[in-house]
């Protein structure tokens, strides 16, 4: 798949000397959903703002659809839609007027049929003549999405789209994002909800301290870095791990009623059979056994913590 957006050695140092982006390079493939993860202050919003032209880069280049965002900014920006993190809307304006304004601002001729389509898609059509101040927080966020989509962008940045949105609306929004991807829109999503990235993204990029730590297919990342755990529930609690099981690196949880064994699913020998044999020899009675895959959140936290302590 070809890259629709290329970030090449992008650095942003603010006047106070703080470097928010440090030599960032990243290729985003056409039609994918890329989740950009990072703790607060990692550089996610600065990266988006720099690509969109809101912040000026100190050095480096960005191209969108082959157009440089500085020398060919018109062609580049026409391809981008941005849903900002904050709900920035003119409170007294009607929904339809603010969306129409966005389309005009991006140089597109008036097309009420298209605007009706996106407002219906976002369940906003009934509210089109309402002033924005009368809408709920979730609806305002959808108005921001409608504005960003009003000029039919090929690349959509969603900066924390689910912040402050209830679970039901969040799932509705995910459905909209999926639909956009099916329509061929490339989506770059920043989020604090790891579940969102886990559900939506094709690839994951992790940024911290202004540097990209990794960019990888989500499934491959979870296979590569995700640990499997086997949880052994005991009928009777134990006060310590029996010496016969000392070599397995077990942890004791739930007041001595659960033994947890972490293993690498990719390894040629997982050690599960050996552990179960050793367990039988100890005479402990097993009530239940379950396995679980570590979540993206655990991988993310582990990755960020590991780099910070390095």
């Amino acid at each position, binding site marked *: 798949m070809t890259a629709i957006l290329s970030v090449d050695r992008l650095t942003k140092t603010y006047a106070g000397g703080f470097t928010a982006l440090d030599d960032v390079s990243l290729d985003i493939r056409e039609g994918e959903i890329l989740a950009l993860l990072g703790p607060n202050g990692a550089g996610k919003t600065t990266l988006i703002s720099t690509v969109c032209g809101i912040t000026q880069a100190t050095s480096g280049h960005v191209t969108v659809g082959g157009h440089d965002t500085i020398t060919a900014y018109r062609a580049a920006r026409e391809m981008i839609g941005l849903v900002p993190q904050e709900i920035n809307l003119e409170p007294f*304006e009607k929904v339809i007027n603010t969306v129409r*304004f966005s389309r005009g601002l991006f140089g597109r001729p008036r097309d009420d049929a298209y605007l009706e389509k996106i407002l219906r898609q976002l369940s906003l059509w009934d509210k089109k003549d309402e002033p924005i101040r009368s809408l709920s927080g979730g609806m305002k966020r959808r108005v921001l999405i409608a504005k960003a989509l009003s000029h039919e962008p090929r690349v959509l940045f969603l900066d924390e789209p689910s912040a402050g949105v209830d679970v039901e609306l969040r799932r509705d929004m995910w459905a909209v994002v999926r639909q956009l991807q099916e329509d061929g829109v490339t989506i770059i999503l920043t989020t604090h909800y790891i579940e969102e990235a886990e559900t939506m993204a094709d690839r994951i990029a992790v940024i911290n301290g202004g540097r990209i730590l990794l960019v990888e297919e989500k499934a491959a990342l979870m296979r590569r870095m995700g640990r499997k755990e086997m949880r052994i529930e005991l009928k009777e609690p134990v006060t310590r791990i029996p010496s016969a099981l000392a070599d397995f690196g077990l942890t004791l949880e739930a007041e001595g009623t659960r033994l947890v064994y972490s293993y690498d699913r990719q390894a040629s020998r997982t050690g599960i059979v050996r552990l179960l044999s050793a367990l039988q020899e100890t005479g402990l009675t097993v009530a239940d056994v379950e396995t679980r895959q570590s979540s993206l959140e655990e991988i993310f936290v582990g990755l960020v913590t590991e780099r910070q302590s390095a």
Partner: protein
Amino acid sequence: MNLTAVAAIYKFEMARTFRTLAQSIVSPVLSTALYFIVFGTAIGSRIEQVEGVSYGAFIVPGLIMLTVLTQSIANASFGIYFPKFIGTIYELLSAPASFLEITAGYVLAAATKALMIGLIILATAYFFVELTIAHPIWMIVFLVLTCLSFSLFGFIIGIWAKNFEQLQLIPLLAVTPLVFLGGAFYSVSMLPPAWQGITMFNPVLYLVSGFRWSFFGMADVPVGWSIVAIFGFLIACLAAIAWIFRTGWRLRA
């Protein structure tokens, strides 16, 4: 050239004017009508003619200028400050539009509003005084150029301002006194010689004088100077805005 963007900003700003009609148009017209009643009719009836023109008629160009200057600045400065204040500026900065196009949208809307108010005040003046305009085309030229150049100035103030207090600071502390001391209500020839000399440093004098010339064919300074002054101000404002957008001063982080 993204003319669609210019039109979008223009229509959006004009829609705000008509949404807040009382505040945008009725209020400045009402205050000017009060000036006519107090200065023109009540006090003016006791003042002799100024260079052959009744005092009531004499103050009409000055009153129009006072309102047009303050309205141009207020409209344009609020137009660009409000998106900064509520955060919608991100949309302007990320749009495929140049500084010239964004400025044109806001400034043309602000100038249109100011022009509308100026013409309404002129029409209102006919209810209070007898008035003939000696050079109507020049009158329109002066009015349009003043609306445009002071809307540009207001646009700069709107970008510069970090809060509502700063937004009001220059119009209240600089522009209004300069208009009052720039011959809006008197002829410079009525001042003592020393003050006449000082007044020549007031840039607003050149606008009021030129505008009054278009009404009555008389001026405090040669009309050519007025034209040069207004064009010079226009170019200076454009240059400042070009620099602001190029550097991102007070706009981009």
